[in-house]
């Protein structure tokens, strides 16, 4: 290392920093930031709450100094954060001070997407929405209004939509993210991996990551345990076409050809089965259809997998034996964002089967069994039954979709089949960055009578709304209780730290008021949310005041491993781990995973891969001045050889052009050895086009814009997005 490297680093990231505005303190002094409404307050106070910069829900303690939010730290009582937040949580301060945040309800003035608004009162906004919703209900039935929602903040809106009579409630976290994984594990073990993932990383002796970029993907507990596993000397096997941060720490780095993971998984299982390295007692006791499964692996030798994957046979053999040597404390991580190639549920099933061979499901160092506190629900009136059922998956086209498919709702909105969808509520999810093929989303929006967006920032989807409702950021509001399923049982409380600076309101208030305008007040019998909390905690035998004071109520340890006496149960049709799946066979699918070579792109094009940066969440954090200061635009990673072939130099701007001729915003080139030459990589969520997001507008490029194609998983309807290819175009085009 030399001073030159530091200067080089500054040169790269310095340009990204751009002309500086001032820090939060200076901004406050200059009067450009809103007052918190508590300016008469002196001294220091702290408030425990939980974070909302991502959905992980880490326990936090916010500090207020002289009435202004100062900093946020981890709550040591919280088993998710263990007293330490991730950079996004630490930078959550910037969400409160974000000058670009939504301030007041807005009603569309001109045609959709023009971003021209009239500021209205909350009552005017509710009245407008209520009229539209009543009219839709009369003409098309209540199911014609759908809700897209992400995170715990949406709970009361979900309750509102169910009370109104709609079952069409979906989150992109299923069909655009973890859905295939949960389908694959359900088919095998009968249960989801769930969230937070039930992965016992900290006790693993061998950790296998397949395209999972822990450390860049900053789910706090996972990353903390990842560092612990490294510190404990665990063996780490990383499979990725890109030399990720995790790859940099691996004992074995396997630079796989994109889209060939199933071939590698089959070859690994071939070695483990033929060399009889699997957990034979576990498989004999809990397995179903093992003989048929084992026989199916015969052709898939490491030599067969080599030309498919690019991984040498001896490396496949060595890593398979390494995994077996540490069983059952070998964790083949199921990943989270796994909508890649269209056979993702089958790949996830192969990962589940490899774990089954190693006996890691239910075992220490593998997958624990999550536990929860017993807290009764609030006794609301029953929801009206839906006559027509859900719209997203007509005829159970995707038989193993166990949650609602967002893109199925979009499809119904486009086609009117199986019945029309005329209204969308969108809560805290930027559908234009989350769903593939934004042109389809925009076309679907044209068919709507009503599009309501509730959010803290003016996202791209907000720009297309008829009504935009500004929500208080998490530091200014209560949300529903987090009764978590985790290794340790606990209940966590989100509560306001500071007041909202403008006319923003918490989601529980929005849902309750909206219910009043729709004649659904019976579903919100409590007057404010603390009345609801008190009722539920009392019903569960817990003390609300203690929860308020500490932010967390923890329960006693319960057994979470078979080793602790927990009885193995597998809620599959056979009651066992299904190595061979009669369910899949009956539905006309491969009963054991089968490898299909991924189609190549056009000549001169490179496969577009995308992932996360540790300082940003989705497309939600780029106007947060603290987090944007850490990373204000993304880069396109290009291998040295690819850069030479295309005449690209490090740091220059280019545009990307995809196979359908769609051209991106300009993006900086990062010439690197850290990626295979046939693919390129970028961080998701940048390239904002919402003019209201003044600070983030036009910085970097949007991967979502390049994802015009997607492959739909036939098992569960997930939309695979790593099937797009790009080439380079001049930045000044």
């Amino acid at each position, binding site marked *: *290392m030399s001073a030159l490297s530091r200067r080089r680093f500054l040169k790269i990231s310095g340009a990204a920093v751009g002309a500086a505005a001032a820090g939060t303190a200076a901004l406050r002094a200059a009067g450009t930031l809103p007052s918190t409404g508590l300016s008469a307050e002196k001294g220091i106070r702290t408030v425990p709450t939980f974070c909302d910069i991502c959905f992980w829900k880490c326990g936090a303690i916010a500090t207020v100094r002289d009435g202004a939010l100062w*900093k946020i730290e981890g709550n040591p009582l919280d088993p998710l954060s263990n007293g*330490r937040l991730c950079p996004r949580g630490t930078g959550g301060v910037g969400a409160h001070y974000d000058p670009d945040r939504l301030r007041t309800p807005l009603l569309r003035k001109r045609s959709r997407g023009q971003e021209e608004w009239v500021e209205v009162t909350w009552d005017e906004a509710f009245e407008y929405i209520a009229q539209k919703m009543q009219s839709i209900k009369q003409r098309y039935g209540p199911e014609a209004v759908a809700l897209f929602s992400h995170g715990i903040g949406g709970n009361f809106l979900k309750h509102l939509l169910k009370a109104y009579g709609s079952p069409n409630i979906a989150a992109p976290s299923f069909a655009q993210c973890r859905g295939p994984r949960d389908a694959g594990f359900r088919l095998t073990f009968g249960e989801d991996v769930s969230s937070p993932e039930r992965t016992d990383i900290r006790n693993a002796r061998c950790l296998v990551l397949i395209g999972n970029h*822990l450390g860049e993907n900053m789910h706090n507990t996972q990353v903390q345990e990842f*560092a612990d596993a490294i510190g404990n000397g665990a063996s780490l096997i990383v499979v990725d076409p890109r030399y990720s941060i995790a790859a940099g720490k691996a004992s074995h780095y396997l630079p796989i050809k994109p889209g060939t993971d199933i071939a590698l998984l089959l070859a690994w299982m071939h070695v483990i089965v033929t060399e009889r390295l699997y957990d034979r007692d576990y498989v004999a006791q809990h397995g179903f259809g093992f003989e048929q499964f084992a026989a199916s692996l015969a052709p898939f030798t490491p030599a067969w997998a080599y030309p498919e994957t690019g991984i040498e046979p001896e490396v496949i053999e060595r890593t398979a034996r390494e995994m077996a040597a540490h069983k059952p404390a070998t964790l083949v991580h199921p990943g989270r964002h796994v909508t890649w190639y269209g056979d993702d549920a089958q790949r996830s099933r192969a990962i589940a089967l490899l774990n089954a061979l190693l006996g890691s499901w239910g075992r220490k160092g593998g997958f624990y069994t999550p536990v929860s506190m017993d807290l009764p629900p609030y006794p609301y009136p029953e929801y009206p039954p839906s006559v027509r059922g859900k719209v997203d998956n007509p005829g159970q086209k995707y038989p193993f979709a166990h949650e609602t498919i967002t893109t199925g709702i979009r499809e119904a909105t486009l086609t009117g089949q199986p019945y029309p969808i005329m209204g969308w509520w969108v809560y805290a999810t930027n559908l234009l960055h989350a769903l593939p093929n934004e042109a389809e989303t925009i076309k679907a929006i044209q068919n709507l009578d009503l599009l309501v967006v509730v959010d803290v920032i003016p996202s791209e989807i907000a720009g297309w709304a008829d009504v935009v409702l500004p929500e208080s950021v998490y530091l200014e509001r209560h949300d529903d209780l987090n009764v978590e399923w985790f290794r340790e049982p606990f209940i966590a409380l989100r509560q306001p730290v500071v007041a909202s600076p403008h006319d923003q309101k918490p989601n529980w208030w929005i849902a309750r008021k909206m219910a009043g305008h729709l004649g659904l007040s019976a579903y919100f019998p409590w007057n404010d949310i603390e009345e609801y909390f008190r009722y539920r905690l009392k019903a569960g035998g817990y003390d609300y005041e203690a929860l308020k004071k500490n932010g967390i109520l923890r329960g006693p340890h319960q057994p979470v491993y078979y080793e602790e006496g927990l009885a193995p149960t597998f809620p599959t049709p056979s009651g066992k781990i299904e190595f061979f799946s009669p369910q899949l066979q009956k539905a006309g699918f491969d009963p054991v995973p089968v490898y299909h070579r991924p189609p190549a792109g056009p000549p001169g094009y490179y496969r577009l891969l995308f992932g996360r940066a540790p300082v940003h969440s989705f497309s939600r954090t780029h106007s947060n001045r603290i987090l944007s200061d850490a990373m204000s635009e993304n880069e396109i990673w290009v291998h040295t050889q690819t850069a030479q072939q295309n005449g690209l130099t490090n740091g220059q701007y280019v545009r990307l052009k995809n196979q359908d001729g769609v051209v991106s915003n300009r993006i900086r080139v990062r010439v690197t050895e850290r990626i*295979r030459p046939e693919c390129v990589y970028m961080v998701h969520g940048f390239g904002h086009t919402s003019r209201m997001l003044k600070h983030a507008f036009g910085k970097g490029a949007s991967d979502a814009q390049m994802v015009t194609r997607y492959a739909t998983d036939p098992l569960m309807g997930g939309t695979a997005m790593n099937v797009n290819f790009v080439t380079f175009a001049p930045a000044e085009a």
Partner: protein
Amino acid sequence: MARYGMVIDTARCVGCMDCVVACKTENGIPEGYDRDWIAYDTTGAFPTLHMEIRSERCNHCEDPPCVYCCPCGASHIHERGGVVLVHHDKCSGCKACIAACPYDARFIHPEGYADKCTFCIHRVEQGLEPACVAVCPTHCMHFGDLDDPNSTVSRLLASREQHTLLPEAGTKPQIWYLK
């Protein structure tokens, strides 16, 4: 007398920048400036690569050229722990220290003085760790008294392979990186 230093385990560090963000909120660092940063050293050719990730900042050198060159007496060695600090009110903003620092650790604050890492001495004096150390989700950073053989930093230095940055500059940096 204590001699404060840091020991940073590069095997655990994932370069998430939590240290950078925590410094920013704790110390109110203006947008566009940082007292600490992440450096990546990548060597080799794909796929046979090696990468070291480091959280970097002022090395609080035992022989600090920034202090020796300061014409105003603003840059100084603090009585506690040998921490290198700047008296903001004495600093003229002449940038001699910026030129002298081999680590590019200093910048001119918009208010006109040279600024850099203080090892969060305001926290340390309250018995707390520096903000970057306290926040680190990977527990890769350690702060303590290098003169105390029983401190975590001393014990880590005794047990693991390590290096400092630019030892050839002869400034005796007080931050060590474990391999």
